[in-house]
């Protein structure tokens, strides 16, 4: 199981601040695509991704037990 934390407008879009996905292993890019298709989360095109609090790239591997955070840059000030 992979835990996904959603921040800012990603939350509002799907009505939850976290998800638990029954996935054994995936790349960050695959995970994003899955969520884009399932929830129309186009915002995932421009987010920062962390795996277990470490900056991650699209080709990095996410495994069961990991926590992935999708952090959309917010611009207000």
């Amino acid at each position, binding site marked *: 199981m992979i835990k996904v*934390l959603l*921040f*800012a*407008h990603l*939350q*509002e*879009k799907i009505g939850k*601040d976290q998800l638990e996905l029954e996935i054994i292993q995936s790349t960050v890019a695959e995970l994003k695509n899955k969520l884009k298709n399932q929830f*129309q989360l*186009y*915002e995932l*095109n*421009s987010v*920062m991704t*962390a795996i277990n*609090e*470490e*900056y991650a790239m699209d080709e990095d591997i996410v495994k069961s037990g990991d926590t992935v*955070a999708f*952090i*959309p*840059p*917010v*611009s*207000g*000030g």
Partner: protein
Amino acid sequence: MSERYSRQVLFQPIGTNGQQRICNKHVLIVGCGALGSSNAENLVRAGVGKLTLVDRDYVELSNLQRQQLYTEKDVCDQVPKANAAKKRLQEINSEVEIMPHVLDATPISLKPLLADIDLVIDATDNFETRFMLNDLMQKHRIPWIFGSCVGSTGMSYTVLPNETPCLQCLLDTIPVSGATCDSVGIISPAVQMVVAHQTTEALKLLIDDMEALRTKLVTFDLWHNHYHTMNVNRAKKTDCPTCGNNPTYPNLNEEASSKTEVLCGRNTVQIRIPQKMNLEELASRLQNIAPIKHNDFLLSIEYKSYRLVFFYDGRTLIHGTNSIEKAKSIYNQLAG
């Protein structure tokens, strides 16, 4: 040392030496909205030597819900934020030298202000200006502290030229769909939480306590009770156009940066950004704000007394004004 700073001097990592350093430093705050006014109040109360403030807006009624320093009288008098801030800040601490500038933050307008600046606080409300700051601070070797907030969320990160990954390393392109306070609202604690992190890192930098620096990017959501830190060391790119081996500072380039022009006789301003726009994203975010129309070529939205038309090639038309300032302000509210 003044009795005024006694509680700060008692704080062991600062002490008398630290306080002396703080009193000799010069900080530039870019933006005097929610983040800027609160950062300014903290640094002035802490006794920073000099403070330069830059902002292009004046105080409006909808600012009072979260923008420290400002009062109903400032709204009535339509005082520019930088000037209203200076007045209140001097009442709080007459020992600090405060220099307000009412201007649009651009590479050209900021350059003359950087001479003896030790630290820059980002309190802007859009990523176009942040990417410009990122280039400018890298070029001039000045540390700066990124901060942003909307809703109950916010983030902060400290950029040290030549050491840490820069903003361009973390975000390949300027995000066009960054949520803004004018689209999804904001509560004042989100502002305070970002500022608490910015001021703490500022104090560490001002007293040269480099070991204590956070180094991680912080993101939080106070309403949903999340606090997340991210180690970004591996994000540093040797080919980064801003902080890499052969920097080109793309966001200081006049040609590459936004071009804004009044379209004569049409009561319209055109803004052009140097990237293509993702109109699907923008549409999905704006649909709750106002009526939108979206086809294969453009996205249009009715907002207040304006009509905005976004094109995939990066252009936006703002109908209903001939004022570049006003057009930029509306644009940043929606697509900032």
